[in-house]
């Protein structure tokens, strides 16, 4: 199997879907001539031309809304946000139009569109450019939200998202674009709404999504050295949420820690913890722990910014807590 980067996997997904369906096109800031702010769209302008690879002005609300209008009139746009931080300017269009038009029209209108770009903490960027906004999208009925953590999942989920008849928000991460992984040559899709067990185990369930997956897997390896067998669930999709996989795992291990780089209040982690506590209450041997970013904006200083985010140490401590090892 070929080993490629996360950004190449996304690029392949877009390329393949544009080749497959002439109604698929991509628009956003710097997607064309510049080949993408993070080079995800590299080569697409040369291959598909200006009609289908469209450089926009810096107007997130406007071009996001134009994508939505194009979607309701028969196209399948991919809207690239340079980062989710800038998508805050477009939130009205995503929440009030993309997510609601099917509903407000009594099912007459469909909005097949993908909104994607980097989300979450990066490095040395302070508080406006280094934050996870996952909860904002996950909160909204009418949206689907995917957050793949490997090149394989990124390619398969983006292809599914492009073909989906509902609006899909995709959370990537700046620091993940260069991560590498195996991706098969032949075509495949990953269904939206299915979690993936990245490591089998029986003593404790560690649940995460997106960039923290690497940290969580590393912790699991270290726990194994201490004789603790952790199961690692990668949610991959936040909405719909694959509770079947989560609950089955917790019923096996009886212990759960949810790791999330969003803030704690109203976070994906806190909701997953609630769902487990409610559904698996009788089978839990300890209360569910969450490890999130600290409830503060991101500082610039590197030592401080690392202290804000989930770390191996914080995750290990939470595991120790649910195993009563303190």
């Amino acid at each position, binding site marked *: 199997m070929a080993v490629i980067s996360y950004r190449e996997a996304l690029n392949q997904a877009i390329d393949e879907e544009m080749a497959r369906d002439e109604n698929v096109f991509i628009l956003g800031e710097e997607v064309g001539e510049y080949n993408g702010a993070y080079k995800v769209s590299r080569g697409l302008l040369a291959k598909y031309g200006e009609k289908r690879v*469209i450089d926009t002005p810096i107007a997130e609300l*406007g*071009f996001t*809304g134009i994508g939505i209008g194009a979607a309701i*009139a028969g*196209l399948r746009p991919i809207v690239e946000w340079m980062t989710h931080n800038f998508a805050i300017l477009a939130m009205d269009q995503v929440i009030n*139009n993309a997510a609601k038009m099917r*509903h407000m*029209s009594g*099912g007459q209108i469909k909005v097949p569109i993908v909104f994607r770009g980097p989300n979450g903490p990066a490095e040395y960027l302070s508080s406006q450019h280094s934050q996870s906004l996952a909860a904002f999208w996950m909160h909204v009925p009418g949206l689907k939200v995917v957050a793949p953590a490997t090149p394989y999942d990124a390619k398969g989920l983006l292809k599914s998202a492009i073909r989906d008849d509902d609006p899909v928000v995709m959370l990537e991460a700046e620091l993940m674009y260069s991560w590498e992984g195996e991706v098969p040559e032949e075509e495949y899709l990953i269904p939206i709404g299915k979690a993936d067990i990245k490591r089998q185990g029986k003593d404790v369930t560690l649940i995460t999504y997106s960039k923290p997956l690497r940290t969580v897997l590393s912790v699991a390896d270290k726990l194994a050295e201490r004789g603790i067998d952790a199961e690692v669930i990668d949610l991959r999709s936040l909405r719909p949420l694959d509770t079947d996989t989560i609950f089955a795992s917790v019923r096996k291990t009886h212990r759960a820690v949810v790791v999330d780089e969003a803030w704690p209040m109203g976070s994906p982690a806190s909701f997953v913890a609630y769902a487990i506590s409610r559904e698996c209450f009788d089978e839990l041997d300890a209360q569910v722990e969450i490890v999130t970013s600290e409830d503060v904006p991101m500082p610039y200083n590197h030592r401080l910014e690392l202290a804000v985010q989930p770390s191996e140490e914080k995750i290990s401590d939470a595991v120790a807590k649910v195993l009563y090892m303190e």
Partner: protein
Amino acid sequence: MGVKKTNSAKVLNDSLYMSLLEKMLLIRIFEERAAQMYGLRKIGGFCHLYIGEEAVATGSIAAIDLKKDYVVTAYRDHGHALACGMDPKVLMAELFGKITGCSHGKGGSMHFFDTEKHFLGGNGIVGAQIPVATGVAFSQHYKETGGVTLVYFGDGAIHQGAFHESLNMAKIWNLPIVYICENNQWGMGTFWKKVSAVEDFYKMGAAYDIPGMQADGMDVLDVYEKTAKAVDIAKNGQPVLLEARTYRYKGHSMSDPAKYRTREELEAYKKQDPIGRLKTLMEEKNLIDDKAFDALHKKLKKIVDAAVEFAEKSEEPAIHTIYEDIYADKEAIWQL
């Protein structure tokens, strides 16, 4: 009804006069009944009536071909929906919140939709429909359908960033769209001149090298002609901004007694009533007399009566429908 003559120069055929009159009168009667039903609490929530502004939707939509053209508007959408040919029954049923409504009772007054008739809403956030409509025009351009999109918004919405961002992109991408500012002069309770840097909205297109036009929004023929011109320009990939000066007789919504303006101002506009003006013109051309007008009024009143009866007799939506029309597949909704 009023007597002021229209200044229309273009020769229009007789059947068009009659259909414009019929459409405007249908909207007027429908809206008056909606107000009445609101008073009886059959209709709830926000209900923005189009009385006084009928010429704008009627004249402009008559100038397009809904087989390939599209209409997108904001929350004062009853008139546009009727002008697009939507059935008064499904509209009244939607106002009543019934399952037989165009949006199954989920949209209400602000969210009328009919994809088959190319009427794409019905948007409740001021100005948010402008980028969406620009995207619809983008799709027409992309697919080379030869169609245009008309998008309506008020004198309040024109100051939103959504408007300015859209015009810029429509221009750089040569989109077939006509932006129609329905300047009814009051953004809720705020007089438009108090909050605008310019007094002629059509000039705002100039910042984006988009031609601007102005129409008398109380004159259906003027709106028709100006829209036809604008559509011809837009079809060639040049977006146009058309300002229609008009006036709403009622408050911003049903809950607004409109105390911010004078009775004299309202009466002055009623003297230029769009229905009265067209009727006067048609009388001069011997196209209609009082008897024929009364017969038309009676016929339309019956249609609206039937719509009220239909809405009244229709079923409430079943509770389980709250989980429908959200995703292509129901499973995506969170339920423990």
